[in-house]
């Protein structure tokens, strides 16, 4: 029975993906992609990965969806298309892609059995961190270097986006509000944020022991902030505004500081002192949640469009 359900899910996913690719209109393709993202979340639940499911729905589906929809609105009618491909070329690419998929499928089916896993090692080490959620332990303890560098990646993407602003206004504010704000949007922007903030804080708080964590919480907070800005209730900040800069750099900075302290008071860089692991990790997560929220929102908002208010 579950197998049938899974098969249906897979079929639906593939159909949606094909639809996204062959659909002529940009807008409907992107909406189909949004649906695809939500469905993918379901697939992750089926794969017993609720943390990933939340992240996928929040960032992979939601965040990317908003980003693409906003872009489509701007580009509509003037997006320059490159030359299309010939039929024979498309056929060749299709054959090649099919071959890659087939090879990949073969590889997936040929995985070593019994499956190699780090689950026992992760479980064993979990005690030292005091955390209940093994995924959080991987992200912030065992493989914390990845997470640290990935925060820098997000920050760099933001700097890169900002660098696309025209010269005179680059430390000014982006423009988020559409020309005409639909009434329901304003209404939502007044009602939702309090709930959103509570949900975000909750997600962050349980993240240490249950599914949830910085990214998911950060995305929810970012969504609330974006909603407020889009409805025009609060203007987007200047990119050089100290509070924004503090929010953006605070998380990684705290992470780095604790990492360096680890090399003095614990076993090394990015190691936590015995017994203090959980509080330190929660502190880092708190700061990172804010940073992620600010960074994601600003990434969606785009480069500055208005001269800074001085």
């Amino acid at each position: 029975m579950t197998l049938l359900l899974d098969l249906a899910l897979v079929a639906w996913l593939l159909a949606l993906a094909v639809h996204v690719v062959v659909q002529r209109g940009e807008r409907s393709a992107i909406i189909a992609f949004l649906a695809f993202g939500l469905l993918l979340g379901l697939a992750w639940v089926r794969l017993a990965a609720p943390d990933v499911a939340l992240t996928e729905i929040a960032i992979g589906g939601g965040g990317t969806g908003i980003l693409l929809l906003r872009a489509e609105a701007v580009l509509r009618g003037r997006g320059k298309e490159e030359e299309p491909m010939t039929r024979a070329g498309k056929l060749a690419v299709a054959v090649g892609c099919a071959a890659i998929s087939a090879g990949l499928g073969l590889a997936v089916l040929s995985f070593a059995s019994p499956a190699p896993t780090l689950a026992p090692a992760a479980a064993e080490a979990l005690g030292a961190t005091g955390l209940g959620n093994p995924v959080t332990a991987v992200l912030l303890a065992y493989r914390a270097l990845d997470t640290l560098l990935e925060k820098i990646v997000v920050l760099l993407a933001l700097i890169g986006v900002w660098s696309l602003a025209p010269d005179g206004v680059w430390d000014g504010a982006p423009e988020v509000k559409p020309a005409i704000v639909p009434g329901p949007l304003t209404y939502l922007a007044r009602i939702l944020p309090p709930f959103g903030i509570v949900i975000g804080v909750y997600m962050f708080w349980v993240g240490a022991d249950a599914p949830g964590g910085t990214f998911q919480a950060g995305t929810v907070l970012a969504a609330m902030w974006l909603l407020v800005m889009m409805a025009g209730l609060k203007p987007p900040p200047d990119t050089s505004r100290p509070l924004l800069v503090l929010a953006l750099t605070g998380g990684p900075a705290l992470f780095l500081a604790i990492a360096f302290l680890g090399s003095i008071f614990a076993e090394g860089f990015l190691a936590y002192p015995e017994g203090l692991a959980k509080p330190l990790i929660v502190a880092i997560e708190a700061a990172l949640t804010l940073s992620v929220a600010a960074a994601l929102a600003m990434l969606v908002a785009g480069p500055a469009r208005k001269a800074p208010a001085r």
Partner: protein
Amino acid sequence: MTASLSPGALFGLCGAALVGIGLYAIVTHPGLLRRIVGCNILGAGIFLVFGAVARRGGGAGFEADPVPQALVITGIVVAFSASALAVALLKRLSELNVGERNGTAAPTEQRGRL
């Protein structure tokens, strides 16, 4: 048959198919925005392969191996950042092109130094 079609293998195969579909979109679609969408489909397929690996590796009281899950979370964030940068570049490009077509450079655009 049922053994090989455990949820792990099934979604792994689905991921493999999505990789092909995404790649096809990236290579053949003339629209730049759709190529970015294609990258996201490709990414989704790759993450599903990771998910399949994680599901297979369940044990020690966990239904799935936490390490690949964490990798996927990191990967999703990186992919989102990449999409954001690509979209920003695309918007800027179209803005500059429109500016050129209208005979005026985009506002306060700096004349390029080499």
